[in-house]
């Protein structure tokens, strides 16, 4: 399939090492954040989410850290594997009123796992 994100920031990590991908968000009122993984030619896939009343959440091999003071999110991937190679986006969920929302994506980061 065609590549997405040809000119995005790239993080190259040795297989087995830990990866840290960073993201800054814009709206201090946002109360929910998601990390998505996008492989070439595919739609974004949900990885992990975090609410604004938390500063850390762990999943399987992934951890998301939220620093509301500086409006910063990070995604940590433990023991990075070749299958982790993809573009990673953070998204903030912004309330529109009447209980509806939209998701605003940050700039993606391409993760390259080196064998």
């Amino acid at each position, binding site marked *: 399939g065609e590549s997405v994100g040809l000119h995005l920031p790239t993080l190259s990590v040795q297989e087995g090492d830990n990866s840290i991908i960073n993201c800054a968000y814009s709206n201090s009122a946002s109360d929910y954040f998601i990390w998505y993984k996008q492989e070439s030619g*595919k739609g974004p896939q949900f990885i992990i989410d975090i609410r604004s009343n938390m500063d850390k959440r762990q999943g399987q091999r992934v951890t998301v850290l939220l620093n509301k003071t500086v409006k910063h999110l990070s995604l940590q991937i433990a023991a990075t594997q070749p299958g982790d190679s993809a573009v990673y986006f953070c998204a903030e969920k912004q309330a529109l009123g009447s209980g509806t929302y939209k998701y605003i994506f940050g700039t993606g980061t391409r993760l390259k796992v080196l064998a």
Partner: protein
Amino acid sequence: AAGVIQSPRHLIKEKRETATLKCYPIPRHDTVYWYQQGPGQDPQFLISFYEKMQSDKGSIPDRFSAQQFSDYHSELNMSSLELGDSALYFCASSLRRGRGTNAEAFFGQGTRLTVV
């Protein structure tokens, strides 16, 4: 499990033509979002619908319109196509579970539109 279905997967149109992209949300999801992703870009929010009503509008050109039908599927209509409209168009759906309850958006595989 059923996912978000988009059709067609690929579409080639000439300048000034019209295109219609379709999105079928996950069953029982009541909210649909459309995003445009250009090469090397992050997905840009275009428009969203909740319970068949437009809930928000982002950077969607006036040449584009969208609607959500009674069966919750949505269509993005694009007229007077320009070369710059070439992009991946994603649809996502989510379920509003109630005030203050989070519900992640699930994305379809996207439609790649190429305008020549």
